């Protein structure tokens, strides 16, 4: 955990307080010792000084005693010796006192001077030797030297009497000063001791406070650590730090475990974390992206949109033993210290619900758009045509469902279904785009894509058909929606105040339409195809009025497919036509007429025609025939290849052609009516389809 600065400071303070405590105690000890020594010395001196104080009067008294003895002619020897001892003691003690430092110098000076003034008078007294008395038998008297001695004593006595008080005063002053100094030292010592005790007390308090604060700080740090741990264990986002080597730090949030299915992340590299979940390219980009954060140029806030891990699809345990798809969002943030970027913080969030929501929103929007498109194209189309289309689409889907319903267990059985499905879907798509019902056409196109994709598989099972049947359901729902819309639109038109609008509609037979509508549909499809493919051609339609109603749906299917083929393959681009000295605009003709007991439908374009060689090559490429078989085919047989299922000469797949379904639908429909179909061509000049149909039965006509 973080060893916070506060904590470090507290430790330093505690150490400083301890050091200070020791220093103060040492100082108190040293100063106190010196003061105590001084006081002890002073006390000795004081004793000597106060002893000295007695000497002047002692000397004075001894001199008096000496004189009185001389007066009474008594023995003086011991008094003289006592006086000498006193003076000598005084001298000694005084000298000792003079050596002391802590004396009031002026008082000491005066005392010294005064004492020294004793010397001249005392010296002759002390220096006296001999017998002061001269004894006779009856009388004793002072001897000659005795009289001199007496005079000296008397002088000294008087001097001492005169000066004793002064000397005493001076010595008392020395004592007093010494006493004052001692008192001062004692007081200093008292202060020192009090101060020392106070300082120790304060420092002790401070240390105790700091210790307490540290304990509290440690507790707070421990609590903070615990809280951090709790947060990391609870938070729903995955958090971790990455170092400059893209390795995960020692701390991470628990949510990562669920997201990545492992417990320990310490030291794990970012690459190891994601290796199985993203493509190597994405991982490389992500690594570079993170590297940008270590640099200085890139602004973190202005690179969110290029984050390659902004939305990562992963498969995760759902907590019930299964797997589910979730979306993770990786967010990267710089973590900076005083020396620049320290780490990159990575936050991983589960954004599944918002991804799904936005997807739903998008789908809903798309739906609304396509509904609007649908509405617009429906407003431009005849509701009867749409009704017809919806009927035939419903029939087509019913047929598709019937194909699916055929029992199948083997690859072959499943595979057989695909051709039928493709045919039905292709026809439906053709009709839908002829009516400009693009939302339907796109859905059918998508289904066709799925079927085409299955065709390439070597092993088919029922599982492969699940998406198709789901898509089929979706398409049915869509068609139902379209039908409802048509009914509402029709109701709207019928309620319109213009009676002509109703009257001008030639036939109000819901669910079917007549030859006029078919001609109009073809014209509209021709215009759309011309526009979509950048071709210029015109369509002429004749004789469809003769077409029996029962043949109309088939005829329509056939014509739509052939018209598409012409627009995509047949009619050449303008440049090519000009180069071939042809008219600028292409011509497509449709003729329907009675022929014998039946009918004949002719379809012709003046386009590029069919080349038998190209057809053969394409058929070989598509594995419809082998190269050997191709070599055997004559031109007529080669042309017939275009009626084979799976045949296409167009490399890429577009909405209008090239899916390998087209002419086989036409052929199958014609055979279904008991008719025949043939093709003739002149390369570079035209392609002509001739369809013969038998007489329509009565019931079919109705």
């Amino acid at each position, binding site marked *: 955990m973080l060893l916070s600065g506060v904590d470090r400071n507290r430790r330093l303070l505690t150490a400083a307080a301890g050091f200070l405590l020791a220093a103060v105690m040492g100082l108190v000890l040293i100063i106190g010792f010196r003061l105590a020594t001084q006081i002890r010395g002073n006390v000795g001196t004081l004793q000597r000084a106060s002893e000295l104080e007695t000497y002047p009067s002692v000397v004075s008294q001894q001199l008096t005693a000496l004189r009185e003895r001389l007066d009474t002619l008594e023995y003086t020897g011991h008094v003289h010796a006592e006086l000498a001892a006193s003076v000598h003691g005084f001298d000694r003690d005084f000298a000792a006192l003079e050596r002391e430092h802590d004396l009031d110098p002026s008082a000491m000076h005066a005392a010294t001077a005064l004492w020294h003034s004793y010397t001249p008078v005392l010296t002759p007294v002390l220096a006296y030797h001999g017998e002061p008395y001269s004894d006779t038998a009856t009388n004793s008297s002072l001897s000659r030297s005795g009289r001199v001695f007496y005079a000296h004593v008397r002088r000294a006595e008087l001097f001492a009497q005169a000066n004793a008080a002064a000397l005493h005063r001076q010595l008392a002053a020395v004592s007093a000063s010494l006493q004052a100094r001692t008192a001062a030292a004692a007081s200093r010592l008292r202060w020192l001791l009090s101060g020392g005790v106070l300082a120790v007390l304060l420092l002790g308090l401070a240390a105790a406070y700091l210790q307490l604060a540290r304990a509290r700080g440690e507790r707070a740090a421990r609590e903070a650590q615990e809280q951090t741990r709790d947060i990391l264990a609870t938070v729903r986002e995955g958090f971790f730090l990455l170092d400059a080597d893209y390795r995960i730090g020692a701390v991470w949030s628990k949510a990562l475990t669920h997201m990545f299915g492992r417990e320990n992340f310490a030291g794990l590299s970012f690459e190891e974390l994601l290796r199985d979940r993203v493509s190597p390219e994405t991982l490389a980009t992500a690594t570079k992206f993170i590297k940008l954060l270590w640099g200085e140029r890139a602004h973190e806030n202005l690179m969110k949109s290029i984050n390659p891990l902004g939305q990562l699809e992963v498969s995760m345990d*759902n*907590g*019930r*033993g*299964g797997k*589910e*798809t979730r979306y993770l969002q990786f967010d990267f943030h710089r973590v900076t210290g005083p020396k620049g970027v320290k780490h990159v913080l990575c936050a991983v969030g589960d954004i599944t619900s918002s991804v799904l929501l936005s997807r739903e929103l998008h789908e809903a929007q798309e739906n609304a758009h396509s509904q609007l498109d649908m509405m617009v194209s429906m407003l431009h189309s005849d509701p009867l045509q749409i009704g017809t289309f919806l009927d035939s689409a419903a029939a087509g889907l*019913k047929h598709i*469902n019937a194909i*699916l*319903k*055929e*029992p*199948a*267990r083997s690859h072959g*059985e*499943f595979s057989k*279904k695909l051709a039928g499905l493709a045919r039905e879907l292709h026809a439906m798509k053709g009709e839908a785009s002829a009516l400009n019902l693009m939302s339907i056409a796109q859905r059918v196109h998508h289904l066709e894509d799925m079927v085409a994709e299955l065709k390439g598989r070597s092993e088919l*099972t*029922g*599982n492969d*058909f*699940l*998406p*198709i*049947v*789901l898509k*089929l*359901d*979706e398409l*049915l*729902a869509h068609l139902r929606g379209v039908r409802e819309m048509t009914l509402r639109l029709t109701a709207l038109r019928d309620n319109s105040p213009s009676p002509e609008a109703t009257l001008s509609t030639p036939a109000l037979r819901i669910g079917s339409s007549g030859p006029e509508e078919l001609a109009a549909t073809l014209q509209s499809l021709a215009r759309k195809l011309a526009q979509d493919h950048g071709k210029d051609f015109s369509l002429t339609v004749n004789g469809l009025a003769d077409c029996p109603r029962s043949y109309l749906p088939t005829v329509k299917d056939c014509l739509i497919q052939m018209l598409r083929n012409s627009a995509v393959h047949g009619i050449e681009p303008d440049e090519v036509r000009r180069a071939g000295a042809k008219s600028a605009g292409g011509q497509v003709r449709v003729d329907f007429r009675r022929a014998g007991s039946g009918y004949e439908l002719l379809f012709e374009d003046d386009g590029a025609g069919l080349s038998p060689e190209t057809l053969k090559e394409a058929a070989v490429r598509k594995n419809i025939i082998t190269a050997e078989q191709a070599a055997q085919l004559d031109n007529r047989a080669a042309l017939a290849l275009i009626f084979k299922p799976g045949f296409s000469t167009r490399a890429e797949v577009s909405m209008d052609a090239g899916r390998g379904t087209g002419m086989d639908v036409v052929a199958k429909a014609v055979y279904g009516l008991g008719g025949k179909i043939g093709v003739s061509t002149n390369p570079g000049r035209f392609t002509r389809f001739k369809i013969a149909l038998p007489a329509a039965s009565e019931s079919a006509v109705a």
Partner: protein
Amino acid sequence: MLREEELKTFVDGTTRYFEVAAQQPATIGSPYLLEGEPAMHDYTGMINITGKREGVVYFTAPRAMLTVLLMKMQESDFSHESMRDLVGEVANTISGNARRDFGHDFVISVPSVFAGEKPQISQPAGARAFVIPIHWRSHSAKLVVSLT
């Protein structure tokens, strides 16, 4: 509208039952949309789904298939009750799978079992039923899924 992974979950639940119970997985046939009345075999196990989604899922199988299945499971009791139990078990497995994969979105009923009598099927309005043939050995059953 039914999603592909949902349909897969139901289908897998069914085929896995065969694999686990009889050590021989079932295969699925060509799926299609149900038109008209549902075709029932002899025994049917059904679960109802409510909650955010509504619908019904049932597994219906002929007596012959169930008999062989019981045999493969080393059972010796081929009574009416055993058959009922068996289709109930299949429905249970399907329901477990669905709970595991979709959790809270689905509230799944306890399976109900029908034998012979015409079951009460409350198909949700606006949802078509998907029929997925289940092939096992030489027999065929059906899984029917209808979900809004």
